[in-house]
């Protein structure tokens, strides 16, 4: 640890589990999640808040973890991609839909994209195509051209309804 900046205890709930680690003030939340918490599913693409690869859910809402310092998350509740499912038989409807609709290619944007979609569907269970595109406009994908991602998210809305027996 650097002698220049102070070190803070960061205590937070991650995917429902309480975690504690220490970090200097300047440690970005994205790096904290990846290195200090060992959750490497959250990815880093730009570190200036444009690409969305680092998206996590803070209090259920998508935020760019590269634009927060770890210390800001002390006392917070966050969700990362690792919290959605624990294996191929237990996928969240969004993950299931992305799989069926080929909504990913290299997979680097996928965690951020999936979490953003999850939050969207919790607010808006039946989004139009335009709603979906607006919701994910801040998540860059270089591989898919977004076509199958949009299909997947709309399909996920349907899968969600099916599972809920609606």
């Amino acid at each position, binding site marked *: 640890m*650097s002698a220049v900046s102070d070190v803070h205890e960061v205590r937070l709930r991650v995917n429902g589990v309480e975690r504690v680690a220490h970090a*200097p003030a300047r440690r970005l939340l994205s790096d904290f999640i990846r290195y200090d918490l060992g959750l490497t599913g959250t990815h880093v693409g730009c570190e200036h808040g444009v690409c969305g690869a680092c998206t996590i859910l803070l209090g259920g809402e998508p935020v760019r973890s590269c634009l927060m310092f770890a210390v800001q998350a002390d006392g917070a509740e966050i969700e990362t991609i690792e919290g959605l499912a624990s294996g*191929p038989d237990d996928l969240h409807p969004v993950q299931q839909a992305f*799989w069926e609709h080929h909504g990913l290619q290299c997979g680097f944007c996928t965690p951020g994209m999936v979490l953003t979609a999850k939050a969207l569907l919790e607010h808006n269970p039946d989004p139009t195509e335009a709603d979906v595109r607006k919701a994910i*406009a801040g998540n860059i994908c270089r591989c898919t*051209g977004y076509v199958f991602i949009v299909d997947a998210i709309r399909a996920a809305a349907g899968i969600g309804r099916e599972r809920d027996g609606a």
Partner: protein
Amino acid sequence: MPEGVAPRLLGARVKRREDPRFLTGRARFVDDIVKPQMLHAAFVRSSLAHAEIAAVDAARALTLPGVRAALTGADAARSAKPITCDSTFDSWQGTEYPALATERVLFVGQPIACVVAEDRYLAEDAVELVEVRYRELTPVTSIKDATAPGAPRLHSHWKDNYFIKRHLRAGDPDAAFARAAGVVELTTVSNRHSGIPLENRGCVAEFDADQTLTLWTSSQIPHLVRTGLADVLALPESNIRVVAPDVGGGFGIKAHLFPEEIAVCLLAMKTGQPVKWIEDRSEHLLASIHAREHHHQVKLAYAEDGELLALSGRIDVDCGAYSVYPFTATMDTGMALGILPGPYRIRNYECEAYSVATNKCPLGPYRGVSRPAAAFTIERAVDEVAHALGMDPVEVRRRNLVAPEEFPYESITGLVYDSGSFVESLDKLLADSRYEELRRQQQAARAEGRFLGLGIAMYTEQTAHTTTEFAKRGVPIIFGYDSAIVRMDPSGRVNVRVSTHSHGQGHETTMAQIVADSLTLPLDHVRVTFGDTDSTPYGHGTFASRSAVLAGGACARAAETIRGLLIRFAAERLEAAEADLELAQGSVRVKGSPAIGVTISELARLAHHRPETLPDGMEPLLEAVSTYDADPGTGTFANAAQLAFIEVDIETGGIKLLGYWVVEDCGQMINPLIVDGQVHGGVAQGIGGALMEELVYDEDGQLRTTTFMDYLLPGATDIPRIEVSHLSTPSPFTIAGIKGMGEGGAIAPGPAIASALVDALGPLGHAVVDELPLTRERVRRFIEAARADGKAHA
């Protein structure tokens, strides 16, 4: 495909086997690799475009707590040769691209020194404390400046600033121009941009006690990186292991050996600890690989009836400061020279092509390479012919597209278009897009004072070219094949290891489809791996739309060998003739008597555990390694036609995409879902390059676009729904008639959108849209040009 085997999976829309780990955040990208005692690297990079380095002093940096070591150019030069990659052409002038600059820097962002520390934060602090003194030299920042008489030479042993000069002449262009009814003269500029994968470059190097160097690196070409490292580090290749883990997009950018990779290896060797370097986005924009900066001047001669008679021109590619490994600085230039006539029957041709050196980041291949620029030029020129003659651009195309009965067609540049559906794809595009309906919408909008436009662009794309083609191109390593090992284990399941590297293309699924079909196994009994030079056969990696054909072909051949072994063994066990046996549903059985057979899993068990049961002369194990070079090695040509439907806001210059249609033909598809995904992604990148992506240097050679605030990427509200339909004209040359197609989507959006803009401005007049990307400022310029012309056209 083997005879008598009806494919179940070839051509099937199967969901991808690799997805679960990506969906659940359990993939393993290079930054996810953590090793004990690992140090983190950061680079000191040149702040000037052209300068001599007077001094580099890392003393202050090394005093920071947590900073472990530093490497300067002088240090690196003691242990590593610079990267060289030389063409075999006569006019070639080569470069030496050092891991860390020694005497001179030739572009802003070029690595000068490297520091390692306990974390990246500290390493960046240390970088700020490294002092570099420069003696500034005049930067050369454009083709015009580089080729002007008396221009400063970037490389002191060169006689000018040209990497290479090419010239091709075929047919009788002079006579053709002489008899032409008219000549379109066009100058086009495709501005610099790049692939911008979402995952930046990065690597982890470890040098262990056995003197083995392991490099994990986000790369498309692990074997070639290994070969390159062996050369520059003077280490035996067998002492080097390169592992490309999951890679977050490449698009050609990560198909290079980088100076940073070498520096990181040297630091691992120096410190005795693993060293990780993950570049940040500014480094990526400054110093990875740039692409697509082409300046073309062409003349297209035409007859009264729209027949294209001759094409002449000059191609200049701004290749930046160094020749890149493994492609050389000739790749864009040579390819443009060969493909400029496009899918058209042009029989008279003369063209000069130049790779020019400038004080910019080196240029390398990016999805489509020079085809986006070449298609932009020929498609715009063809449209201008149509305009000059008052003909429909669709009609001019129809007259000149290579027709079905002409395949295989040898182009005037010596490329063999093996098969294609040029005319059919154009017709289908008009039908699928409901072209007449779009024209009606355009008319209705015009009545309301809105400017909608339609534009069509077409291309044919050389894919899976191998020995013959690369030998012609004069590259030092001929990418003539790729390879596969198919290994059946004692349980009868199969592991396939390929020399290519998937970074989004779904090879864990597509290669498994091929092998599973051949061995009549369920898809999930076949596991595909790649990326580790220790366990995969040597090959070239994934680029140039080659993997489906070449890795697919190698997989098919290796699987065929295993089939042969299984049949031979079964013949012995069943006391039948091999010719009477077939594979079906995981068994080898007698044709016509399906009850008489033995399961593959049983054969596999016996072959490993009961060798005494094997036929005489047959060895235990069921493993085969094959390579594949698709004869005749000149590649197989995919093609597509694309249509862009746009609205232009003529007051602001903003362009909105209302719709996009593609008809593509890649012969036999392995997995249509994956093909569609590749088309969508390519088109989206093409749209980015057509509308907003540009790497801008100022006259001092400073890059203005060093973050995503300035280098804009299209998001989900910028890309419309992309409708894709397919034709299938199999290749007569490749296994199963498969053609490559990964790059194609990116080729046509530039010309399609440019054409749509011209069409949209029709009521104002005619504008010659000759530059990309179509930023607001450029669109306003073209609007003014249309108004100045003032001759409204329908």
